């Protein structure tokens, strides 16, 4: 049993990490486009807001139909849940980057292709990180939902199978592990980002 639980934790973590990284990457890309390019904002933002309104739980049957019962559908579901808060955060940051920063960088010799990494992303980082932190919570919800419906390992799978045999003790144990994973990830994220980017903590 103990060995099984670790296997489940590992499987859930893998899904969380893969989906989270994919969702964050696309969310930042999308947010940069809609936040900085007027045409992209006109075209993509309304579409994004419509898609955002679909709850991840409602996507499960569709995800399984499209991507099957293997890992791809799990990754997709987590990706879907993570994408939107990261997009919204990035968009908010990108659309409010002070013009002075861009001008200063350009007059100091920065080319257009340098602006994203050197100016736009760091200037919107507090917003991006806020979106990414919200996404951590959603990420674990999506892992759980994905595993409830058609998985063979993972914490969500463990909870649903324990429920079928009324093993409340196992359900509680798995639930505590799931909650712990979410809480630890969140704190780890906060701890790491405040140390890697100390300037995000300044009030000026």
């Amino acid at each position, binding site marked *: 049993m103990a060995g099984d639980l670790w296997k489940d934790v590992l499987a859930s973590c893998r899904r969380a990490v893969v989906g989270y990284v994919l969702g964050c990457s696309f969310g930042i890309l999308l947010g940069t486009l809609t936040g900085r390019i007027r045409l992209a904002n006109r075209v993509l933002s309304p579409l994004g807001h419509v898609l955002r309104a679909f709850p991840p739980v409602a996507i499960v049957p569709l995800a399984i139909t499209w991507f099957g019962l293997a890992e791809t559908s799990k990754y997709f579901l987590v990706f879907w849940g993570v994408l939107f808060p990261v997009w919204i955060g990035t968009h908010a940051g990108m659309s409010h980057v*002070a013009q*002075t*920063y861009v*001008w*200063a*960088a*350009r*007059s*100091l*010799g*920065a*080319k257009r292709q*340098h602006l994203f990494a*050197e*100016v736009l992303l*760091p*200037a919107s*980082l507090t917003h991006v990180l806020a979106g990414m932190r919200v996404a951590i919570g959603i990420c674990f919800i999506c892992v759980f939902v994905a595993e409830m419906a058609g998985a063979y390992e993972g914490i969500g799978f463990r909870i649903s199978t324990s429920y079928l045999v009324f093993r409340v003790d196992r359900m509680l144990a798995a639930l505590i592990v799931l909650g712990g994973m979410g809480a630890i990830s969140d704190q780890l994220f906060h701890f790491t980002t405040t140390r890697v*980017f*100390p*300037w995000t903590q*300044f*009030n*000026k």
Partner: protein
Amino acid sequence: MVDSKPVTNNAVGHIQVNSLTVRFQRAEGPVEVLDALSFTVLPGEFVCLLGTSGCGKSTILNALAGFISPTEGTIHLDGRVLNSPGPDRGMVFQKHALFPWMTVRRNVEFGLKMARISGELRRRVGQQFIDLVGLTGFENRYPAELSGGMEQRVGLARVLALDPLVLLMDEPFGSLDAQTRLLMQELLLRVWDETKKTVVFVTHDVDEAILLADRIIVLTARPAGIKEQIDVCLPRPRSSDLVTAHEFVSIKQHALKLIREESDFVFRAERG
């Protein structure tokens, strides 16, 4: 005064502005900010653009920096038409222009990094200019940990590190307290004396303009045109003690009269 033919000598920081007109498209229609403005700034000259707030002084600098394109007219630097930003013109902004995500050192080294200067050389040049503006020991601080005066010194070091032909300064000391402002003005004069760069300095402070400039271009209210040019023939090096000197006061009286006429005009216009 105005030289319509661009000179073609070497890179020395000779600015020629010809019939510069800038119109912005606003919801209520086009707004003319600059109206056929022409002036020349000689190599190594320190020129102050003096005008009431909102007259379009900053727009002139933004056009010189290449941030905005002239609607009509041209700007030449050493005979070359300017139409985009570049490290040959260093811009010191009024405030909030340092990158808050970079330490003092990385801010100062930013332009060098963009010029693909790396390693030991970048570090050494950066340090040289951090030392020049008196920020030795603050290399690893973030802008949010600095006072307003220190921030502006970083802003100055950041552009000087690229050895620009021209310094463009947009009310750089406007948000500092009076004492710090005096110290910064003296620091700038010292730096200018050492580097002999062409400076275009925008201000609405008459004292500041007289203390710093070789020549003051007094601007009219919007759309900005040239009201009068005042040559400031005060001996250098100058210090803040100068403000009580007889020559200083007489220039000040004249400049204040000109500014007063423009602000009265704006005031009456605003009241309908």
